[in-house]
């Protein structure tokens, strides 16, 4: 196979790996007993999850009154957390789908774990719309099914219902896309396994054999799913933004929300991917597959999307002033100087200032700085959703309705529980499935591995200089 590859491209796979090395390195975590860090992390996560389950059951049993929402601030930590988790989920789809379409080879190091993160984040997010409805046993009402009450249908004009379809579709498509990619890798683990593990991996590998025709269809399926998932990820967070943008609340009813939310989602999602990847690559010893180059590329995306979010903040302020509309102007005055000013300035500091550090190449390639800033960004993006939701509701049109909101222990417990759920699922994933896409990494070894590129090239790639007059034959 020939490829026109520049020999000066930075390698994406270090360590002079062969195909067999890749298999060994990436299957190892599923084959050894987990180390002490995994066990501690798992126990802590399960503990948090247990507390969260308790709080959810408390909510369902005693009602939404156990939350400290009121008629003015009727969306608080619940919807903040919902949007935060959905936003985090978007990076996974972006890495798998959009980077596939843009033929960015570096996605192969991180796409598997990022997509898993998406699925778990969407599961955490989906909890909140379910439990915030109060009578969760009637949750089936949100779906349009034929019934004996008319039949009474749902309100297809409402963004809250669009959310139902959007989140359900997003979860399903992400799951299918992730699993499609996993099947060949499960087959790899299956063919190395024995006994009960072999039975398990045989089941989940769906009978994959590696036939050329099947790979052809697999690639076609992956490409189409990527093509579908790309507008899907853009539409899902747009629809989530419509929950606010289609209302009449000042500070919410603005057309900047769809692109601003999507950029913010990608921003916070990549930050979470970085947090997870930095820990994973160290604990599982796969720094040669998730290299500093991968981290630098993700930091560039954070820089770009963080800047978009920063520009969106400034645009909102400008338009509020320029519109001359007193309620819009007050909405932003209130955000900056009102009772929740600390949330606003925390958001500004975390989201606007922190990504700008990544203009420096040294900082982009610094693991500790990246890890620290990724956490700062996630905190900042949580505050952004809190500022948009709770602070805006606290001070809308009618001063006699103005109110104050502090979350109750139940709400805090549910949020902690979703963090526990997320990490529990992620840790189980790292144990059961290969964290890096084995087959995809093998397919880029010759064009992006370190022994084929640059100064360390031991095997020069079989590339030919492009000759327009030469007809393309089957050998290419």
């Amino acid at each position, binding site marked *: 196979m020939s490829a026109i590859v520049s020999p000066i491209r930075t390698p994406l796979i270090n360590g002079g790996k062969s195909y067999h090395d890749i298999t060994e390195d990436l299957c190892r975590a599923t084959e050894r007993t987990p180390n002490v860090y995994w066990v501690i992390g798992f126990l802590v996560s399960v503990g948090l999850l247990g507390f969260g389950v308790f709080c959810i059951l408390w909510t369902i049993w005693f009602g939404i009154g156990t939350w400290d929402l009121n008629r003015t601030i009727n969306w608080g930590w619940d919807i903040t957390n919902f949007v935060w988790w959905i936003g985090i989920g978007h990076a996974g789809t972006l890495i798998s789908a959009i980077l596939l379409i843009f033929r960015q080879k570096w996605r192969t190091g991180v796409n598997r774990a990022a997509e898993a993160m998406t699925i778990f984040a969407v599961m955490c997010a989906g909890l909140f719309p379910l439990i915030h409805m109060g009578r969760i046993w009637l949750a089936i009402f949100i779906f349009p099914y034929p019934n004996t009450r008319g039949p009474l249908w749902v309100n297809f004009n409402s963004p809250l219902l669009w959310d139902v379809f959007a989140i359900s579709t997003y979860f399903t498509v992400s799951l299918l896309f992730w699993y499609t990619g996993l099947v060949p890798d499960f087959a790899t683990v299956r063919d190395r396994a024995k006994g009960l593990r072999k039975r398990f991996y045989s089941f989940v590998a769906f009978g994959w054999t590696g036939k050329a025709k099947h790979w*052809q269809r697999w690639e076609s399926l992956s490409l189409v799913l990527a093509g579908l998932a790309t507008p899907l990820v853009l539409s899902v967070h747009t629809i989530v933004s419509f929950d606010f943008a289609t209302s009449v609340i000042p500070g919410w009813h603005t057309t900047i929300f769809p692109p601003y939310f999507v950029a913010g989602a990608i921003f916070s999602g990549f930050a979470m991917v970085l947090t997870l990847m930095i820990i994973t690559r160290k604990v599982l010893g796969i720094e040669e597959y998730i290299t500093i180059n991968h981290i630098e590329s993700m930091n560039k995306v954070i820089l770009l999307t963080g800047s978009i979010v920063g520009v969106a903040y400034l645009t909102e302020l400008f338009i509020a002033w320029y519109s001359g509309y007193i309620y819009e102007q007050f909405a932003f005055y209130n955000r900056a100087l009102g009772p929740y000013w600390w949330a606003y300035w925390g958001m500004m500091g975390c989201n606007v200032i922190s990504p700008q550090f990544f203009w420096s190449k040294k900082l982009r390639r610094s693991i500790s700085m990246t890890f620290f800033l990724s956490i700062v960004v996630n905190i900042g993006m949580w505050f952004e959703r809190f500022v948009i939701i709770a602070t805006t509701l606290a001070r809308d049109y009618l001063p006699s309705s103005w109110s104050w909101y502090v979350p109750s222990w139940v709400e805090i417990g549910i949020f902690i529980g979703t963090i526990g759920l997320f990490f529990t699922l992620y840790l189980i994933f790292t144990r059961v499935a290969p964290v890096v896409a084995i*087959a995809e990494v093998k397919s880029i070894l010759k064009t992006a591995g370190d022994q084929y590129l640059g100064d360390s090239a031991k095997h020069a790639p079989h590339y030919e200089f492009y000759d327009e007059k030469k007809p393309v034959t*089957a050998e290419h």
Partner: protein
Amino acid sequence: MKKEKTEVLYGLYDDEEQLMKAVAHARESHLDIMEVYTPFPVHGLDPILGLKESRLHIAGFVYGAIGTLTAFLFMTWVFTRDWPIIFGGKPYWSVPAFIPITFELTVLFASIGMVVTFYTICGMGPGVQNPILDDRITDDKFCIAFEADGFDEEELSRHRSFLSQSGASVVNAKTL
């Protein structure tokens, strides 16, 4: 999906470039390749092997179109015929409001349909066991397999020598 046993003669290669040259050579020598197995998708292999392009994306488009029509026509029927309600002074047939759900259902139907079709036509599914020629194929070996049913000595040795001369590190026969 054959149920009767087949004799298979196969060779394992260590490198995909070797594999592609071997496949091209086999086609030139009119040796009938049954299957080629690889641990990852090898670009450039399909035209050499003579594989026709997959039509899965056409199926995907059809499923998506079904999703679009289902969503749009259903919402139209509900809000114009079955139980029209005035929401916020908007018209009954509020097309812009129907767009998000129509789009989502298009994507959903296309994805589920394509994935189910993919597994069905490949003969795969939860718990399905397909015969494996060699465990190293999903690791780092590339395989050319010939169907050797009813081969006489001369045919067998012709295929065997082709496999070893084209660089196969392992040549083996199996009954699947």
